[in-house]
Structure formats: structure tokens, C-alpha cells
């Protein structure tokens, strides 16, 4: 079984660089075509500029100012790096939020992926009614970051919520999970993990792609269930694992809705659910320090970029791309 590291189709669109370069090379007649291209692109381009690019660049500018939302732009003062300096040297609640977010992502993301993979393995068999189960397990993630779901969660994990009633059946006295600073974040993690449907579906698709011959060959060679999983399933699935890992990590860092709802927008109890984005929101909209909040947003963007870059650079040691032809 020769596993080669060929370019992954998911990482490069059909218009890959080489094709692009060839097309661009000779002709001059491209001008009018180019124009037409931009015209066709324009709906997307206008959206990108108006909704994403311009506000983003604006926030970069604002991150060097003391913008407070209420003061008109014309009276905003340039403060240089003061916001960034404050973030790194003089704001303990900023670092607290960083810790909360890292804890959340480091625990919730791996567990969510493990749950997704485990369930995908179970649902990858041909039982009767397996489709129904796939649907059921996928359902929670359809509800995504919804407010309604977060409200249900709060009520379920209250002192007198459904979860504690369940525990009391077994004679265990529950806690006020969502109102306990030691457990509130964990409650949010459980919510995130429970929504493993989206990565599960992707894992399922990945599992379907693994050629059955590989398993046959492995079992002929005397590999048991576990060895097959370790030496066939995992390597063949590694691009999908990689994809899910990157996506879920980014999602995990951005967790906002559930924390906002659970804490009434405060990050409480005692800042235990003060996720990065929630802290950013409070800074910008409640404390009216939008310049500082913009700086936080940019540091956040860079941090996620760095983490993603690290994933990509380590990926080549453990992600195997097989194009399925050179077996």
C-alpha cells in the first residue's frame, strides 16, 4: 500500500495556480474577458467588500484609536499601539478570557472529534434503520449556535433541571451546574461536544471512501480489528480528520452564543464562561471601548491564523493523501 502525498483536492479549487498561469501567459485579448469576469464576480465582490473587507480594514484602523461608538469618526483619536499594549500588559480579564477559551477548545474539540469518529464508526455498518440513527445523531448540530438550544441547556442543567432529576433517580445529589463557577464552562463543553453531528457526517463520508480491499488484505495478513483501525482506517481517514480538526478548532475558539445566553451576556458566574469573543463583545458594546475591542479582534484573527498555520505545517507528518489510483 503506497501512500503518496499528492495535492489534496479539498485544498485547491479547480482553478489551481498552474492552470491559471498557463491561461494567463500568452494572450492580450484577455482584457475584455477579464472585464466580463469581474462583472460576473461583482455580486460576490460587492458583498465581500461591503460586508467583510471594508469593515475589517476599518476595524484595523479603529484598533489604533480610542473609538467608543458614540463619538463620531471625525473626532476619534489615534492612540498608536496603546490598545495592544494594554491588552498584553494591563488587562487581567483579557488574559482570563484567553485562558477560558483555550481550556474550552483544548478539551471540547478533541472530545467532540472523538465522539464524532466513534459514532461514525458505529453507524458505518449496514444495519436496518441505520439511516434513522444517522439522522438523529446529526440533528443536534443542525440547531448549531441557536439561542433556543442554549436556553434549553440552561434549564436542563439548573439546580432543579432535568439532569439533576435524572441524577436523583440514582441517589446522586446534583449541583447547580450552570450557576456554579467550577462547572459552568464544562456544561458549555458538553453542549459543544453533543453537537458532533457535522464532523460525524464528514467522517462517515470519509469511511465510505476507504476501499474494502484494504481491510480484506489486512485481515488476510492476520490483522485484528484494532490493527485494522490503526493501520488502515486512521491513515486513510487522516485528511478528513485534518479537515475536521482545523474547522472545529476555529469553531471552538469562536464559541459565543451559548456562553452569552448562559451568562445573560456577562460571562458569569465569576467570569467562568468569559469566552474571548464574549469578552470582546462586552468590551465593545457594553463598556463602549470599540477601539480596544477591535484590537482584540485582530489579535484573535492572528492567533487563529498562527494556530491554523501550525496545523498545516505539522499536517505533512501525519496526513496521508491517497488519490486511490496507485494502490
Amino acid at each position: 500500500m503506497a501512500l503518496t502525498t499528492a495535492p489534496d483536492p479539498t485544498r485547491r479549487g479547480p482553478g489551481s495556480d498552474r492552470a491559471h498561469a498557463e491561461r494567463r501567459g500568452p494572450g492580450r485579448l484577455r482584457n475584455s474577458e477579464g472585464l466580463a469576469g469581474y462583472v460576473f464576480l461583482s455580486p460576490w465582490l460587492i458583498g465581500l467588500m461591503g460586508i467583510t473587507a471594508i469593515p475589517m480594514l476599518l476595524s484595523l484602523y479603529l484598533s489604533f484609536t480610542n473609538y467608543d461608538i458614540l463619538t463620531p469618526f471625525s473626532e476619534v483619536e489615534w492612540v498608536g499601539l496603546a490598545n495592544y499594549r494594554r491588552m498584553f500588559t494591563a488587562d487581567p480579564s483579557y488574559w482570563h478570557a484567553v485562558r477560558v477559551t483555550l481550556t474550552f477548545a483544548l478539551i471540547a474539540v478533541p472530545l467532540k472529534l472523538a465522539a464524532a469518529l466513534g459514532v461514525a464508526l458505529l453507524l458505518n455498518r449496514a444495519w436496518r434503520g441505520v439511516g434513522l440513527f444517522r439522522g438523529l445523531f446529526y440533528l443536534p448540530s443542525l440547531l448549531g449556535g441557536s439561542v433556543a438550544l442554549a436556553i434549553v441547556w440552561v434549564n436542563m442543567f439548573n439546580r432543579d433541571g432535568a439532569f439533576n432529576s435524572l441524577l436523583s433517580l440514582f441517589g446522586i445529589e446534583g449541583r447547580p451546574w450552570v450557576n456554579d463557577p467550577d462547572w459552568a464552562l464544562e456544561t458549555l463543553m458538553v453542549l459543544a461536544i453533543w453537537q458532533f453531528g457535522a464532523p460525524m457526517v464528514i467522517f462517515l463520508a470519509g469511511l465510505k471512501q476507504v476501499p474494502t480491499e484494504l481491510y480484506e488484505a489486512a485481515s488476510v495478513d492476520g490483522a485484528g480489528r484494532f490493527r485494522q483501525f490503526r493501520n488502515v482506517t486512521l491513515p486513510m481517514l487522516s485528511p478528513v480528520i485534518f479537515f475536521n480538526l482545523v474547522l472545529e478548532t476555529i469553531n471552538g475558539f469562536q464559541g459565543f452564543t451559548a456562553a452569552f445566553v448562559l451568562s445573560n451576556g456577562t460571562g458569569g458566574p465569576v467570569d467562568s464562561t468569559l469566552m474571548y469573543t464574549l469578552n470582546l463583545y462586552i468590551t465593545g458594546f457594553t463598556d463602549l471601548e470599540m477601539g480596544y475591542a477591535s484590537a482584540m479582534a485582530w489579535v484573535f484573527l492572528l492567533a487563529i491564523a498562527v494556530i491554523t498555520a501550525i496545523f498545516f505545517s505539522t499536517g505533512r507528518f501525519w496526513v496521508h493523501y491517497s488519490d486511490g489510483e496507485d494502490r
Partner: protein
Amino acid sequence: MHPATPFTTDAPVGRAHRTPLPRRRLLRGLLAVTVAAPLLFGAAACGDDDGGAADPNAPVKLSIFWWGGDARAKLTEDALALYTKKHPNVTFEKTWQANQGYFDKLATLTAGGNPPDLFQIDDNYLAEYAARNSTLDLTSYQKSGKLDTSKFPESLWQYGVVDGKLAGLAAGENTQGLVYNKTLLTKHNLPEPTTGMTWEEHIAWAEQVTAKTNVPGTQDPSADYKALWVWLRQQGKDLYQGKELGFTAEDVTRWFDLWRGARDRKATPTPDVIHEGNATDITKQLVVTGKAATSWVWANQMPDLKKNTKDELGVIAYPGDPSAQWARASMYWSVFKGSKNRDVAVDVINFLNNDVEAVKLLGTDRGLPSNLDLRRVVSDDTTDPAMKQSIAVEAELTQKFGKSPQVPIKGHSKVKSELIKAAENAQYGRASSAEAATQFIEACKSAIA
């Protein structure tokens, strides 16, 4: 505000696309726009400074924004309809929502260059807006009599003055009110608390309630700025003094210790329940959820609280000397400084406060009417028992009120949330009273700096 979106839409990191020339030009254009945009927005925001209407009968659409529940919405809409009836050229674009998120929305509307002409605001935010020049100074209207405050208690309209400018006009008067569950007390043959009890007496009473009823006697208000405020004033201190804090870490330590003692004596609920009660939402107040026998609220919230429970409620002043309480503007009406319809907006404020029919319609929903003559009319007319009760208590307290403090300063909203954080830290036993107090003072200093 989704900083990471570009990742999902853009090319993978570390594998930069080659940038063809047109895109580079495009980027440069983009930069130009970015630099120009603030100037444009800025210009738009400080434009139209020419103010008031030329033709008094020209049609005007006035936008108005407030927070509150369905009941308030109904009353306010009726009162505004009455204004339109009297001034057919004026119509209203009404927006209202719950208290939570109201100020986020107001700030966003202001930032977007689309602020309401007329908006409701309270003392937690008045200085934030006034200090940033977002509110119209109403002094000239008051002087010319277009805004009539002659029937207002002087201290009440003065509670809307920030840095010498009348930034908002009191839409009603209220004061701190300690609301207790009468039904529960009667059922267990317990005495009702009374105005003038000391803090120690209040806690001892609450301890007794807990022991007899199994319902914690009092919510722990150590996270509540308005309770801390009254307590400080009873010792000759204040929340703010000029641009500084009016208290020290030692004061806060004693405040936290007072309530730690109360918690140890089981006079209060457990920290997680206290935390629930720290939400500002009326429906979550422990006295209506049945998780405590008393809650620390504003007296004018009585009717709203009553709607959420079957039990009878009573209301008195906070413990200690009631002269530490004052005639507080429960909320204000403010006019956005850049409003094109500012004259009409001011006239509407005047109407909502001084027109007999309008004030009768509005009742005491926003607190006791600011106009003393009309306050009498309303209290004679009202039939709602909860409203009657809060009017009676406030009327009684009015005799005892002390001098108004200054309006909370810029940074106050942060001070409020920092107090909750510090107090909860102490409640959950994660910090000693002294540690929590020091943490609070540090945070306050940077918030109001």
C-alpha cells in the same frame, strides 16, 4: 464582528495565491476607500447642525426608542397616539425591547448614524452618553419654558444635569425598594420588616425567616450597586465624588463581610441562587421565583413584580436610615444631539410629563410622575393595588429623602459589572472579602480613568 471569517472564505494559509496586477490595484482602491470612509461617516455625523423645524405644520416622523415590557409599550403607544391626535403632523416610529441588550442596541444605532430622535435612558448610562456629547443639552428649552419643569421637585430634574448640561429629563421618580413576600410571612406568623430597621436587624430578621419557612430570608445584595450605594451614604460616603470613587477598599471589605456573616447565618440563599437573583430581569427576582423572601429592587417595579407571582408583596425602604435614599429619576427622556426634529422631540417630552391626559395614561409605570400636581391626580385616580402601594410607600419616603447624589460618572456601567464579579467571587468563597474588595477597587480605577 466575525474576525475569523476570512479563513473560511479565503485561500488556505501558507499557500498564498499569486496576486495578479488588477487585484493589487483593487487592493489599493480598497485602502483608499477605507481611509476615506471614516471621513465620510464623520462628516455625515456632524452634519445637519441647523436644528429645528421651520414650518410647525410640516409632517414629522419622530423615532422613539425605549425599553420595557408589553404593559409599558401599550401605555406609551396610547400616550403617543394622543400626541398625534393633538398634532396630526407628527407621527412616531416606535421601537421598544427588553432591558437586556437595550443599551447595546442604542449604541449600535448611534454608531450606525441612525440613532432615534428621542430615547429612554437611565442614570447608569446618562453620563456615558452626555460625556460623549450624544445628548442634546435641554437647558435652553427649560429656560424658554418649552420644557416645563416648574412643577418638578428641583432635585429630580437636577438629577439629569451632567457637567452643567441638562442631558435628560426625568420620566418619573423612584427610589430603592425592598420588596418582601407578605403571604409567606403571614402564613408563618412572622413580623413584616419595617423601614428604619438597621442592617443587622434586617439580617437577624431574615435569619429567623429562613429558620421558620425554609425560604431564605433575603437576597444577598452585596453585588448590587444600589444597595451598596445606600449603605455608603448612610456613613457619609458616596459612590462617586467628582471624578473619583467616593469609597475605599476598607468600606467594600466591611460591606462584603457584612454579607458573608449573613450567608454564614443562612439569612441568604446559596451563592448559585444569589447569582440567579443578580440578573436584572424582573422575572428572575428571587421574591417572585420563590427562592427568597425579599428582593432589592426599585420601588416602581412593584406592579411588574406583582404580575409574576400570586403572593402578596410588600415594599419598604432599604435598611438603615432612609434619608440615604433620594428622589431618583427612574429613567430619563433624552434627545439625540444630531436630531433634525429636536424641537418636536422636546415638545413630546414636555407632553409626556406635563399633559394631564398623557400622564394619567402612563400612570406610574416609569415611576411616580415627575410633575407633582399630576402625581396627586394619578395617585387619586389609580385603581391598581400594587401601584397604589408603591405610590403610598414612595409618598411616605419622600418626607425622609436626603439630598440627591451626583449622577454616576462615565465608566459606571463597568463599575456595576465589576461589583457583581467581585461580590460573587466572595460569595462563592473564591476570594476573601478583602481580596475581592481590592480587586474591585483596582478594576473601578481603570474603568473610570
